[in-house]
């Protein structure tokens, strides 16, 4: 089952520029939370802070409290490698490993964590591919085709399978469908809907309709601050803050 995420007082900087200002947000387990906002509002930065990917950029840093289940992400004893294993991430542009087969792509995370047993690997790879709704399409080519030989939508589902293989408790998705065509997008959205049974999902999207379609909760970011965070229906029908309303109705962004 997924776990909840609790963010308190999260600040983030790129060098001297502060890109996140004291974010407080609680994302309940097994729900899909969408993060929306105009370009540059900090939504990608926010999500990348959750699994400590933000600090891999030179001169970038983050401070605050992020608790994922019982794991204190920024705690003093916390190991970023461990954090990233337990929080999965899917990126905007599908990035399967081009030199590896489909099977090896999905198994990559497992092998890193010490899994060698062939039979176990095969079971887990199949399970992940089924979860990502890709199994039927690739089951005959697992070892023969490379990860990069699939279509865009399939590649993204492959990346989802790869992320799920290491059994994360939370799945972060940074605009997962923005590089895909409408049919692939709807497949991904269906997938997200099913995934929430097992995982907690946080999805960044610039597409408000997508947020409305898949997420139960939505947070609106603007210029590095969380302006409003509530049930998706409420945000889109009766937003409390004028800025939210302006964004929703397309007055800017």
């Amino acid at each position: 089952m997924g776990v909840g995420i609790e963010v308190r007082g999260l600040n983030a900087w790129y060098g001297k520029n502060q890109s996140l200002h004291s974010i407080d947000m609680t994302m309940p387990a097994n729900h899909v939370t969408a993060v929306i906002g105009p370009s540059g509002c900090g939504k990608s930065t926010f999500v990348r802070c959750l699994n400590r990917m933000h600090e891999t950029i030179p001169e970038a840093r983050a401070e605050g409290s992020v608790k994922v289940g019982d794991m204190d992400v920024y705690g003093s004893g916390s190991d970023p490698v461990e954090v990233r294993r337990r929080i999965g991430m899917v990126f905007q542009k599908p990035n399967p490993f081009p030199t590896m087969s489909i099977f090896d792509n999905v198994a990559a995370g497992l092998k890193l964590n010490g899994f060698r047993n062939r039979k176990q690997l095969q079971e887990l790879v199949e399970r992940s591919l089924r979860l990502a709704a890709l199994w039927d399409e690739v089951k005959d080519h697992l070892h023969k085709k490379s990860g990069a030989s699939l279509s865009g939508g399939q590649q993204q589902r492959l990346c989802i399978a790869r992320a799920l293989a290491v059994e994360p408790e939370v799945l972060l998705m940074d605009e997962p469908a923005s590089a895909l065509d409408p049919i692939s997008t709807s497949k991904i959205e269906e997938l997200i809907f099913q995934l929430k049974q097992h995982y907690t999902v946080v999805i960044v999207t610039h597409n408000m309709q997508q947020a409305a379609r898949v997420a139960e909760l939505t947070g609106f970011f603007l210029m590095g601050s969380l302006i409003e965070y509530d049930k998706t229906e409420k945000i889109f029908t009766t937003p409390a803050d004028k800025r939210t309303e302006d964004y929703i109705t397309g007055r800017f962004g």
Partner: protein
Amino acid sequence: MNAPEPLERLPKPVASLPSLAKVDTGRPARRPIAALEKIRRTRPRSSRIPDETFRSIIFLSAFSVFAIVVLVMWELVDKSRLSLHQFGIHFFFGSDWDPVSGEFGALPFIYGTLVSSFLALLLAVPMSVGVAVFITEMCPQGLRAIISFLVELLAAIPSVIYGLWGIFVLAPLLRDYVEPFLAKTLGWTGFFDGPAYGIGMLAAAMIMAIMVVPIIASITREVLMAVPQNQREAVLALGATRWEMIRMGVLRNARVGIVGGVILGLGRALGETMAVTMVIGNTPQIAKSLFAPGYTMASVLANEFTEATGDLYLSSLVEIGLALFLVTLIVNALARVLVWSITGGTARVSA
């Protein structure tokens, strides 16, 4: 789509531009400025002839590159005709090089060239890839430029200076410390016995390794930098340590290019002359021990070419030169193909 209007139906263009002199301003016509008149009257000179001439000159320069290579090849083949005829293919398998009696077998040189080059690569490749990984993935931003510059500086040092340093610094070091140590610890393998002269195959391989590192390192750096950032992030996001990220997300993707760089380094090592000549001992023999002196194809050319008496002797030497030419040609072509396939065709592959 409609067909365009036929030409006759289109409004006629202005027949001629109004002449400045004919503008009726009501005032008496003034004399137009002489220069303006001149420009209007001057028809543009055709630039065809100068253009064609220039193009021909330029074309000839480019063609000369081709001509030079053909000339080089021709001279090599022509001057080695005698020994090609005399010895045929056995030239490359004979292990006796005895100018006095007219026996010319090139095997010791081929052996020397191959062993020294491969040993040099064995030493150079881990170091080069290590340096390249250090510079691109581990080094603090500020040091990056300095260290890259220093590594490139290694490539600027002339071969004869490497040789000088090799004779007077490296060889004594090997003779007094390294080779005794190796003989004690690894002597049982058979690769490290015999008297420790300092000069010999090991010294040659080490010097060659140092000379080849900058080439392999700079190509490796280029291909590592060509790996897109999102590949690195994908591996990190799965919960990988930095080394695992480098191994799986960077080196794996750059494999082909790195191999290309290594092959290019091999090409350079095969042709290396001065430094090797100065430290390898110049003895045409095939020996298992790395302490033993040897001889490479390039070295025998450097040492014996001006002393060659007799046409057969000279011809044999030129034949060795021809063989060297062909081998480096193939190796460099292979390397180019590999590196271009990664960097997209424009990266210069020369050191």
